[in-house]
């Protein structure tokens, strides 16, 4: 490492001066003889009552005498967290021990050497207890660097009442979805066929991958870029056709999760692709679509298999942690079946453990967990590469160009292939 460039030294001096100026004395999780070890747990704010999480942490302290846990929250914006962790970990910060990682950061952080190898906490039997997608996502070069905490995957929401009225079944293939959307929108005024997330941002990549995968296409295979393929061309062409045929309104190119959820939620769409979080909001008091919404796996192309993009959070242990044993125990505890059940009940976050989808208490509280299980079995991580952010920026721009009709889907894939190869070279 050639870290001692003058620029860096200047920066350090400046930061120290500023720190001295403002008397900034940062509390740290340092172990000292007179205090019990403190394990600092960093995560983004959980939406809801903070008490269930606090109770879990208190229970951990009781079970581990002599260890204290301090939870610290970060802003919800994923970019801000990414930046926070990367800059601190690169500087060798040891003032947090356990932290929550977005599913797309694991390879990046593992390659940088910031995460403790947690493979010993995930023996074969334990790996089996989790869905495959999250396990793939936490694995880098054959080793596990984090433990799956919550998971997410793209699902299809549909209006049961509108399908029933037209004697239609929930679509299993994309063609069936097209047919159903055309049939229903012909008679229902003010109802869009199919709404999803088409704005140029991370969510667009999540959406597009589901079409590519459900046609047998991929982005990377054995580390090689395989974007420019017949399957991907057909899948991206279909996405563009959703817009040109009017089944999906053209303004889908401005939609992120919430605006899309809002349109479906006020009853103005037949189908919606979104994450599981939307379910609770559709079923709450006063919702215009309460009791009329069904959930299923996303459709697939004929000959392909339904696919869902994996999202969610994992717990990693800082390689520079001063209390690695206690930190590992905390990560293990928070990802245990018992803790994940508590968190699922309290916050509605979906556990990555298979067995919990058969838990009667959870099923009673979240009836649609039964539907979710099949989706989660198929959830796949986005390309696992340390260069994911740059790759994603290319995919966002090129997919967006194809959707907006600025270039043909095949040209977009050729251009994406070239740029992705340059990044991953």
């Amino acid at each position, binding site marked *: *490492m*050639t*870290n001692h*460039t*003058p*620029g*860096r030294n*200047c*920066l350090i001096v*400046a930061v120290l001066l500023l720190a001295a100026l403002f008397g900034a004395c940062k509390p740290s999780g340092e172990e000292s003889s007179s205090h019990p070890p403190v394990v600092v747990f960093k995560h983004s704010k959980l939406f809801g009552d903070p008490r269930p999480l606090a109770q879990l942490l208190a229970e951990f302290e009781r079970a581990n005498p002599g260890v204290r846990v301090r939870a610290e929250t970060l802003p919800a914006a994923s*970019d801000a967290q*990414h*930046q926070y962790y*990367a*800059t601190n*970990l*690169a*500087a060798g910060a040891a003032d947090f021990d356990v932290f929550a990682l977005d599913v797309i950061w694991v390879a*990046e952080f593992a*390659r*940088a*050497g910031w995460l403790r190898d947690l493979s010993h906490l995930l023996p074969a039997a334990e790996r089996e207890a989790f869905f495959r997608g999250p396990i793939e996502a936490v694995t880098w070069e054959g080793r596990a660097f984090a433990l799956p905490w919550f998971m997410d995957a793209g699902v299809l929401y549909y209006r049961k009442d509108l399908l029933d009225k037209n004697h239609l079944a929930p679509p299993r293939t994309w063609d069936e979805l097209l047919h159903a959307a055309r049939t229903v929108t012909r008679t229902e005024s003010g109802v869009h066929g199919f709404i999803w997330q*088409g*704005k*140029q*941002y991370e969510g667009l990549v999540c959406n597009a991958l589901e079409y590519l995968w459900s046609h047998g296409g991929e982005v990377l295979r054995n580390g090689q870029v395989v974007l420019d393929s017949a399957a991907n061309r057909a899948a991206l062409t279909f996405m563009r056709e959703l817009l040109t045929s009017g089944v999906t*309104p*053209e*303004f*889908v*190119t*401005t939609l992120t999760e919430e605006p899309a959820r809002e*349109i479906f939620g006020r009853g*103005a769409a037949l189908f919606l692709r979104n994450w599981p979080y939307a379910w609770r909001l559709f079923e709450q008091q006063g919702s215009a679509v309460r009791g009329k919404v069904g959930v299923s796996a996303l459709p697939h192309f004929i000959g392909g298999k339904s696919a869902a993009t994996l999202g969610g959070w994992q717990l990693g242990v800082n390689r520079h942690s001063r209390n690695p044993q206690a930190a590992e125990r905390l990560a293990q505890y928070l990802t245990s079946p018992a803790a994940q059940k508590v968190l699922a009940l309290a916050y509605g976050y979906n556990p990555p453990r298979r067995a919990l989808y058969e838990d009667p208490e959870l099923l009673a509280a979240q009836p649609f967990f039964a539907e979710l299980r099949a989706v989660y079995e198929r959830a796949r991580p986005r390309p696992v590469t*340390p260069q994911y*952010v*740059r790759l994603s*920026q290319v995919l*966002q*721009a*090129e997919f*967006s*160009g194809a*959707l*907006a009709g*600025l*270039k043909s889907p095949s040209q977009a894939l050729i251009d994406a292939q070239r740029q992705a190869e340059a990044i991953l070279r």
Partner: protein
Amino acid sequence: MTREHPGLFLAPAAVTLGAVALFPALAVLWLSLEERSPLLAAARFVGFDNYTRLIADARFWNALANTVYFSAVSVALEVLLGLLVALLLARAFRGRALLYSIILLPWAIPTVVSARLWEWLYNADYGVLNYLLGTHVNWLGSPGWALHAAILMDVWKATPFVALLLIAGLQTIPRELYQAAALDGAGAWTTFRRITLPLLVPLLLVVLVFRTIDAFRVFDAIYVLTGGGPANSTETVSIYAYKVLFQALEFGYGSAVAVSVLAVVALLTAVYARLLRGSMT
């Protein structure tokens, strides 16, 4: 205190400016000569490699073209409209103070807030703009419209600022000049062209400097409206720099992108300063 140490009195200002302006600028300049990324554990001096990469980077040129187009069109419109509004409002009438404050509202609202507001106005599904025009235009979601939508918002926001500055300028023009022109039988257009405009030129140049620099660095409005999409059609240099710096965490290359903004802004300022000096003499 003797007269020999005037530097002592300048020291606090010099230190402050050095710490908050000079040091960060130099640090960015230095960073732009490094390959530095926490993710790649890279921190090494690479000379002008980042700049050669910049020159070959199609996405950078696209961002630069977007930025130049955005700045040129929005500033031209703002100055023209601002001048028009200023000429209309410069005369004395009842309720003028109240009108001025109302006009300044768009300028007073934080950009992120007004960008959210415009996002709703532009909403293709239920936005007011499509409703009023009776159209179904995909304002923010089509590559042909999105940058223009951003320009319109910028014009809405900055025109009042331009108008207010020009009103102040108009009020400094001696009335005698207008009276003399009237005696000589000059019409409204001649008066404007021969008296008002020449005397406003220095101020117009100042306005141009402010607005161009501001427009060239545009970030917040576009970040909220479109995030740079669709298909990078609204990605400005500042947005590109943000994505490289704070999403991809390529601090070296991102700094090179940022320095390019600085270079263009410095160049523009130099040109304006020259024009300004010319107009004063």
